[in-house]
């Protein structure tokens, strides 16, 4: 036989090995080891180096494992974009962990839409009333609950430094015009009127635009817009965008806000370089550790003042049910029950009580915390009194929202007009399908 040909064949077949390996299936691994302990893998969004959230989460895990010695949880953590990249990779390769942190909106829709996780309603039956209404809204096309929300997240709070306000001889503005009028005085004192860091592009949408859309358009309009009966280039929506443009042009936001990494907004507020600071309720978690006891007394949680021609409710904000754990559709019955034990522990009464102490705003209805940190008490009180509208990124798909976030930056720079970015949003939402 011709050696040359033989070698060529061997050589080519080497190339084919990966193809064959790729096509080959794998054996499912048995998880129950037979000693009565169920091991479940959990994928969670957590910054393991965060001095506040990481130990807090570990505490919850410890309490759970002590109470449930037959369940062993193995955790993998992801954080920031990396969390979502990995989740997507796992979902596409069919390697989703047993329990996984999901978002109520579109952020993790590639997992929920693909039928990779179980509907939690059968497990939840009978407990629906124990949660805030917002948390029990259907997440899937047929009203499925894919994840049990841990928190209510209020995405727009105007944190106010009352000491600076007093020092400047100002009072909390009741109207938008008043707020604008305070700008020059605050800047003259070398301070930032409204601290917000928008380099990552989502804060302006999540913490400002959603709230302004609720004010300018009202809740009803938003329901219609989602149903396709109102359009995102309607005059009232454009008006909300114009307010952001005006706030930018009148230098109300942190100078160079689009260059500031998220986190700088809070830094400037904590260091009292800013009078107001717009961010979500989740920052209270960090404020507990970073504000001094004295600061906690004069920092208050307020709503953005009322705007002219306001259609929404006065002092309203935007809020959504937060993320929570869901479970893999492939789990066996016994595994599912063990998984549910963790989910219910975490978002149900026990875990919620613990998390509330840590500064969160659980979706599970709890009594007001008496001995909690002053900032938590302020957050709970704030949540109890303000009307709430939609958060845009929890109702619109990833691509329209991603484009809209960036378009808000474009508008702030003047490279696009409020009208243009509204039209582009409408076009994109229509193209993708509502």
């Amino acid at each position, binding site marked *: 036989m011709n050696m040359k040909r033989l070698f060529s064949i061997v050589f080519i077949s080497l190339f084919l090995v990966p193809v064959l390996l790729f096509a080959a299936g*794998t054996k499912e691994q048995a998880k129950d080891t037979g000693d009565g302990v169920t091991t479940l893998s959990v994928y969670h969004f957590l910054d*393991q*180096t965060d*001095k506040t959230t*990481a130990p807090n989460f570990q505490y919850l895990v410890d309490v759970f494992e002590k109470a449930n010695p037959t369940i062993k949880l193995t955790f993998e953590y992801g954080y920031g974009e990396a969390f979502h*990249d990995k989740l997507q990779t796992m979902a*596409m390769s069919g*390697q989703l962990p047993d329990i996984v942190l999901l978002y109520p909106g579109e952020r993790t829709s590639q997992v929920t839409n693909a039928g990779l996780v179980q509907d939690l309603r059968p497990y939840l039956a009978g407990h629906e009333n124990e949660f805030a209404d917002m948390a029990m809204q259907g997440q899937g096309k047929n009203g499925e609950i894919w994840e049990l929300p841990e928190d209510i997240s209020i995405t727009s709070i105007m944190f106010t430094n009352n000491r600076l306000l007093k020092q400047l001889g100002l009072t909390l503005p009741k109207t938008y015009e008043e707020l604008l009028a305070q700008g020059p005085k605050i800047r003259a004192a070398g301070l930032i009127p409204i601290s917000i860091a928008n380099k990552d592009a989502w804060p302006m949408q999540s913490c400002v635009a959603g709230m302004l859309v609720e004010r300018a358009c009202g809740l009803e309009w938003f329901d219609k817009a989602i149903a396709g009966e109102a359009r995102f280039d309607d005059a009232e929506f454009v008006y909300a965008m114009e307010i952001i443009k005006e706030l930018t042009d009148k230098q109300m936001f942190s100078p160079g806000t689009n260059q500031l990494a998220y986190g700088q907004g*809070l830094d400037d507020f904590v260091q009292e370089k800013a009078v107001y600071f717009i961010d979500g309720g989740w920052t209270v978690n960090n404020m507990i550790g970073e504000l001094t006891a004295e600061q906690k007394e004069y920092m208050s949680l307020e709503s953005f003042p009322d705007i002219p021609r306001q259609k929404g409710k006065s002092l309203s904000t935007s809020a959504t049910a937060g993320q929570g754990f869901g479970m893999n559709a492939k789990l066996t019955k016994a595994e599912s029950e063990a998984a549910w034990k963790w989910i219910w522990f975490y978002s149900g009464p026990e875990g919620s009580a613990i998390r509330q102490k840590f500064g969160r705003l659980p979706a599970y209805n709890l009594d007001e915390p008496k001995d909690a940190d002053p900032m938590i008490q302020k957050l709970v009180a704030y949540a109890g009194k303000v009307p709430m509208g939609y958060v845009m990124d929890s109702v619109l798909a990833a691509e329209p929202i991603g484009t809209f976030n960036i378009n808000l930056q474009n508008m702030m720079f003047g490279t696009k007009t409020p009208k243009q970015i509204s039209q582009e949003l409408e076009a994109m939402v229509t193209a993708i399908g509502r």
Partner: protein
Amino acid sequence: MKKTITLGKGLSYLLMITFTLLTIIPLTWMILSAFKPHALIVRHPLSPPMSWYIENFTLAWTQGHLGIYFINSTIYSLVATFFTVLFAMSSGYALSKFHYKSSRFVSLLYTLGLLITVHSVIVPLFIMETKLGLSNTRLGVILPYIAFGLPFQVFLATTYIKGIPDAMQESAIIDGADFIQIFLRIIIPVATPIISTMFIYTFLGNWNEFILVLTLTSDLTVRSLPVGINSFAGGMSRDYGLQFAALVIGTVPMIIFYLIFKDKIAQGFAAGALKE
């Protein structure tokens, strides 16, 4: 005449000093900041540390699990680099001294490999590794590292070995050596200068690699330093002191590594001037 020389000299120094300062200032600042607590960095970003605040390092080391990451980084960088260089040298020898038609095609494939971004293969790669049970293992990280290192290194090896006179190989054949012996006893020793360069480059690249190890692993026990550092440097981290300490832990070993081996390169270059 004299004037142009001094002007040229002046400009040369200016250029050299500019580059030097651009390197020294940020690095010094990073190292000094790592010894300052968060509050001091925020309030006085430029001031030197008041005292040597080493809690940043101890905290970063324990909280970020940098110890185990450090070991893994070392394993990945060493093992993957060794095999990348070995395979690149053997390929380079095959491609430059055998003169088969298929060499051109293989070289072209490797050149195309230079153009592939990690992101465009990450999902198929992950699927493949989970099916093979390789994800979450050290081997599962090392194999892609070798593969991604190859295109550039094969290129370097091929061009270098091409420059080795054919006469060396021919006289060895006459003496009865086979090609594997020639590769091990002649090509590799003669190519030491390029090997040290290849080794350093590949090692640095592997040490700093982030996306592959992040995607292909999930257990703390098999992840490496860039993952640990990223968890400090990622957007919302609230403690600059910790962040700088983590950066120093990740960066300084490489600077030391380079400072040690830099003379090796220089020697290699000097010895590598082939006698013709």
